[in-house]
């Protein structure tokens, strides 16, 4: 296990000794935002965790903008005034270059290995480019693990129900219907977990899989659900991420997120195929779950992408979708109007047939996932158009109806999955 960590990092970890809380911040050219993130983490260390032994570990994947120096120099002093009380324990701040397997998966593995070495009671991870991160995020995520014995705490972000359609239209209902747990943010980068869960993850034979380099977030969340770990979620507030030129466009983002989600379904099939219904996760902190202020979005470009996609991708889609589903999607695309009538039932059929086709590997899996993009855009356009101007509570009800449609459809999904397994 120690071979995952460089000699220099090992020396720093040994100097830190045994700790209670480990917070990881993986970075790559995050100079503009990392200082504020580290500052907030330190406010948490010197506030809610001032009696505990804490360490912040920064794994830097080769920044060229001085990010590691900014992490080391991130100060608690603002305008010559100490803004946080001194911690009773030594706060350690370790910044180490990361030379392992590229991607977040490798960084997380190194973080878990470091946590094992430090015998930490709780491990948390935060993205370096989230500008809305506050010190109480750390407390809300870590405290249930550290004090109340939870194994995995996921965040719940405050957002308008029309925001984040990849979460609300795709990941959330599919994870809920399959795994039987109502996790609001299965794709979130932030989380806290116990050492027991970290050690369980380290012991899994998946770390060399390419999908973990980009899909480790969904893998962690679904592994916690499928492994029977004690899971909960903490409301953190809105999540605002700094714009970045390095962030991939929708097709690549879609390939990463949906590819990882379908791969997790494959890995955990022995767990979820036999489950029915769903249970809410323990809510570990209070706060509003939805923001009444939504951004008005024009569904017209999404609709156009859907229509041209359905027209051009027919030879690809007919190998993935069943004939009646494809015919219905084509009928919906052919109807004139600002947005297609892409209803819950059609979307549920479409997504589960794609998941089953991915399982059966009817074509190269990257191609299969990319073929889903226009259909997702059509569904998103339909949802945005249908709910434009509605109260957030009413939109939330529509999202719940979609989740229930996925649950209702699960027996059919399982039959399709098993039938195709045998073919």
């Amino acid at each position, binding site marked *: 296990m120690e071979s995952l960590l460089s000699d220099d990092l090992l020396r720093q970890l040994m100097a830190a000794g045994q700790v209670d809380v480990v917070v990881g911040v993986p970075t790559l050219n995050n100079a503009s935002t990392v200082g504020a993130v580290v500052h907030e983490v330190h406010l948490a260390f010197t506030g809610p965790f001032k009696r505990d032994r804490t360490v912040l570990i920064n794994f830097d994947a080769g920044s060229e903008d001085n990010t590691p120096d900014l992490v080391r120099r991130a100060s608690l002093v603002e305008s010559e005034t100490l803004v946080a009380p001194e911690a009773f324990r030594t706060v350690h701040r370790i910044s180490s270059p990361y030379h392992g397997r590229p991607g977040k998966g490798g960084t997380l593995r190194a973080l878990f290995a470091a946590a094992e070495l430090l015998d930490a009671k709780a491990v948390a991870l935060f993205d370096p480019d989230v500008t809305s991160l506050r010190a109480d995020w750390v407390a809300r995520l870590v405290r249930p693990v550290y004090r109340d014995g939870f194994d995995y705490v996921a965040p719940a972000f405050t957002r308008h129900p029309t925001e984040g359609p990849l979460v609300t239209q795709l990941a959330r209902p599919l994870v809920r219907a399959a795994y039987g747990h109502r996790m609001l943010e299965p794709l979130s980068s932030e989380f806290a977990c116990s050492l027991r869960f970290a050690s369980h993850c380290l012991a899994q034979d998946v770390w060399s899989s390419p999908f973990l380099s980009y899909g480790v977030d969904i893998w962690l969340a679904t592994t916690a659900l499928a492994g029977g770990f004690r899971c909960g979620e903490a409301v953190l507030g809105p999540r605002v991420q700094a714009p970045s030129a390095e962030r991939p466009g929708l097709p690549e983002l879609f390939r990463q997120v949906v590819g990882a989600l379908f791969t997790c379904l494959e890995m955990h099939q022995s767990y979820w195929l036999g489950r029915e219904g769903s249970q809410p996760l323990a809510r570990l902190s209070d706060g509003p779950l939805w923001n009444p202020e939504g951004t008005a979005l024009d569904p017209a470009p999404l609709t156009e992408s859907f229509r041209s996609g359905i027209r051009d991708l027919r030879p690809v889609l007919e190998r993935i979708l069943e004939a009646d589903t494809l015919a219905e999607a084509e009928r919906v695309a052919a109807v004139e109007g600002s947005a297609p009538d892409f209803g819950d039932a059609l979307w549920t059929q479409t997504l589960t047939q794609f998941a089953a086709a991915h399982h059966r590997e009817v074509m*190269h899996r990257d191609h299969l996932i990319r073929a889903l993009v226009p259909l997702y855009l059509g569904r998103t356009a339909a949802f945005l158009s249908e709910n434009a101007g509605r109260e957030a509570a009413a939109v939330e009800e529509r999202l719940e109806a979609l989740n229930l449609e996925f649950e209702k459809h699960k027996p059919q999904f399982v039959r399709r999955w098993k039938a195709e397994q045998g073919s």
Partner: protein
Amino acid sequence: MAEIFLDILRETWANYASAARAFLPRILAMLSIVLVGWLLALLLGFLTRKVLGWIRVERLSERTGTSELLKRADLPPANHLAGTVVFWLVFVGFLLSGLDALGFQGVEGLFSDFVRFIPRLIVGVFILLAGLLVANFAWRACLLAGVNAHLSGSRLLAGGVRILIMVLAAAMALDQIGIARGVVLTAFAMSFGAVMLAVAIAFGIAGAGLARRLVEDQLAGKEKKPPSDGMSHL
């Protein structure tokens, strides 16, 4: 006079009977070779179909899009097609060997020529199959990339890529087999050159501005941003 005629007739018939006596076993040998070859070809064709079925070649063929191409060409599934090819290769080999056994002048080298031809044929078929797979993969990748980048004419572009790769593979396969090598190479070089010239002229006239922008952006080190729909999907 009549005696002479009868002698010639007797001698001719005697020669004919002697030739027939010598030839009849050869016919029987040929028939037995053809019969054994037919049975062996049937067996090998059957075994090929079964083995390919066991190793789930049909699934691979479905995944790579070969099944679809075969269906469009009104051909049987991949494992049946391979079985049929093996049957005919073996049967034709034995048939030529049988003809060889007859001892006719002009056909005695057919079997050895055929045996020498088989490896080239197999390599040619493999080149063609690999070309079809690559063409199908590239077609789908181009189509999906084009559609997701909102390019108009994605189908045309993807179709062009597929045809280009298939033509290249067919030319390579025919060259390998050695059929009309000169004609194939000349025809391929002419058509490929014509297509490339047409594309270059079309792009040079219609896309000069785009080319200039691309080169300028590249030299200025500007990063190309992916097309955005203005919303955060996460």
